[in-house]
């Protein structure tokens, strides 16, 4: 795969007047953003046909930095806003850039229902196992035993497997990588963007400042080594026992199917309505 110079990607897609970003040193959001922009570039989409939506948190600031139409909304509600945008103008392609809290905590209900409807949207999910912007509180994704400011003695709850949740709720495309799996990441986003219906690409993304620091991983390389330790490729995981998988995060492509998307379903519904009312043959 030929990779364009990062500066070219930056110059083409970022709003320079908004830089520098708010992101901390070692943060993985920039990488996930770069993958997304490279995927858009490779696919040749126009900047005018894509709308970025987001909720609240570090990752949600991304739509402000990219030179596209963007809606930076309220915490957790990005996908509900996206439902309105997409159904009101189906020509627009929507990328929702979301965090793990946005997706699985405050926005959990919107998330599962957007998937159930098969809303035509591509979710790029930044999972850093923490609430970064508010200062390192635990998230629904924080693995058991890890520390956050609201669980200083180590998380006692079970974590959500967001990709798994998306698969069971019916998403058309679901993949999970760490931001260090850059080729797989870019390829997954490309696939996701071309899918009708709901697609999700989850990235384990380092947050050394809010998360790593409290868990003896103060730098991104330390988090990288930890990701290497806890991630298991899907094929390998299939041969492992539940005990062996305890505390691990499976990475790979979890779903790739072609159920009709919400827009298509609604357009068919509209036609059915007109026929049933005798407005059309």
């Amino acid at each position, binding site marked *: 795969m030929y990779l364009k110079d990062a500066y070219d990607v930056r110059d083409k897609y970022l709003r320079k007047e908004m830089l520098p970003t708010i992101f901390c040193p070692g943060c993985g959001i920039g990488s996930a953003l770069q993958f997304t922009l490279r995927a858009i570039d490779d696919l040749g989409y126009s*900047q005018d046909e894509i709308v970025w939506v987001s909720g609240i948190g570090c990752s949600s600031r991304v739509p402000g930095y990219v030179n596209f139409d963007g809606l930076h909304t309220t915490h957790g509600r990005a996908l*509900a*806003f996206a439902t*309105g*945008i997409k*159904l009101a103008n189906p020509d627009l392609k929507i990328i929702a850039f979301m965090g793990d809290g946005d997706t699985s905590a405050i926005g959990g*209900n919107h998330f599962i229902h957007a998937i159930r409807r098969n809303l035509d949207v591509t979710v790029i999910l930044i999972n850093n196992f923490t609430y970064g912007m508010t200062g390192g509180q635990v998230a629904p994704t924080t693995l058991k035993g890890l520390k956050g400011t609201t669980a200083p003695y180590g998380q006692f709850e079970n974590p959500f497997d967001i990709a798994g949740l998306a698969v069971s709720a019916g998403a058309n495309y679901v993949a999970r990588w760490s931001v260090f799996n850059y080729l797989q990441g870019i390829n997954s986003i490309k696939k996701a963007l071309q899918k009708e219906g709901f697609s999700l690409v989850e990235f384990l993304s380092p947050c050394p400042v809010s998360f790593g620091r409290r868990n003896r991983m103060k730098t991104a390389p330390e988090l990288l080594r930890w990701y290497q330790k806890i991630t298991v490729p899907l094929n390998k995981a299939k041969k492992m026992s539940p005990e062996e998988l305890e505390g691990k995060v499976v990475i790979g492509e979890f779903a790739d199917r072609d159920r009709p998307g919400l827009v298509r379903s609604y357009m068919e519904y509209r036609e059915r309505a007109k026929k049933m009312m005798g407005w059309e043959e």
Partner: protein
Amino acid sequence: MRYPFPVGKADFIPGDEAIARAAILAGCRFYAGYPITPASEIFEAMALYMPLVDGVSIQMEDELGSIAAIIGASWAGAKAMTATSGPGFSLMQENLGYAVMTETPIVVVNMMRGGPSTGQPTFPSQGDIMQAIWGTHGDHMLIVLSPSTVQEAFDLTIRAFNLAEKYRTPVVLLGDAELAHMRERVYIPTPDEIEVINRKLPANEEEARLPFGDPHGDGVPPMPIFGKGYRTYVTGLTHDENGHPRTVEPEVQERLIGRIYRKILDHKDDIISYEKFGLDDADVAIVSTGIVSRSAIRAVKMLRERGVKAGLLKLHTVWPFDFDMIEELAEGVKKILVPEMNMGQLYHLVKEGANGKAEVELIPKVGGEVHTPMEIAEKVVG
């Protein structure tokens, strides 16, 4: 354009149905909602009509999602509405504030029931007046309308869309369970009998670059809707004229909130509407809004028959509030009475407006029944 209901003639329909038909005639093509008594019939009518007029009607997972979806639809260029009742309206407050901050034209209908909490789902109240005006957090300004008849519910729904579009603001339409469910004769006009206002779009690139500026000096920026190549960034954070977040500079917040206030308050005369009955020579004035106004009109007639000089000020706009007009009214009468179906909400506004120039008395009523004309008349004669 073909309509799924008869136009240019009268019909005998409930308030909820009138609101749905008015919305469609005003150009609403996106409805998102969550069922709740007594607003469900608005949704049901929209579900029936919307696909036929190439619009969208979708049942969201909750009220938070419903208002979020209509804000998204509005940025994608559609006129959009949701309808709910008290408990759902409470859930919408966060995003109502977002619509204020991002200056998104939307219409939110609240068919009030008795509360707080789940309260009396099938009974009317006027308990959400303050919530409609001040429910969301922070300093904000929006428009609240309140009809008292099914015909007014129809007319004010069209007006709600027009005001939302004209001033790029959320508009709340406050009805109640009584109005929602009662049937009355309503004239449904043909499209060319209605004035429909559409939002200002950017005239050029320069205007589009200032989605939160004031290029026309009226406080209302043209709205660069998504997908037109303007690449607009919209955020609920405090933002400058370009839409860029600027959260730590006091003057940016001051400028933004100031303009959001000004664009409504400077156009008060255009926004505020009311009707006066027998106030010219009145000694006693009744100020009311919504369903109670109907009993108040009858009370005024009864009092006049008895030789009492009573008059009524019936407010169609609850917010912005014309404090000056109330003061003027107070100067000419001995007493103002405020009958309302709550423990006193409009009363506070009227009292502030009267500014001590006349005695202001509340006639509260909770429980789910509208004041009888006699109840109001008796209070007037004391």
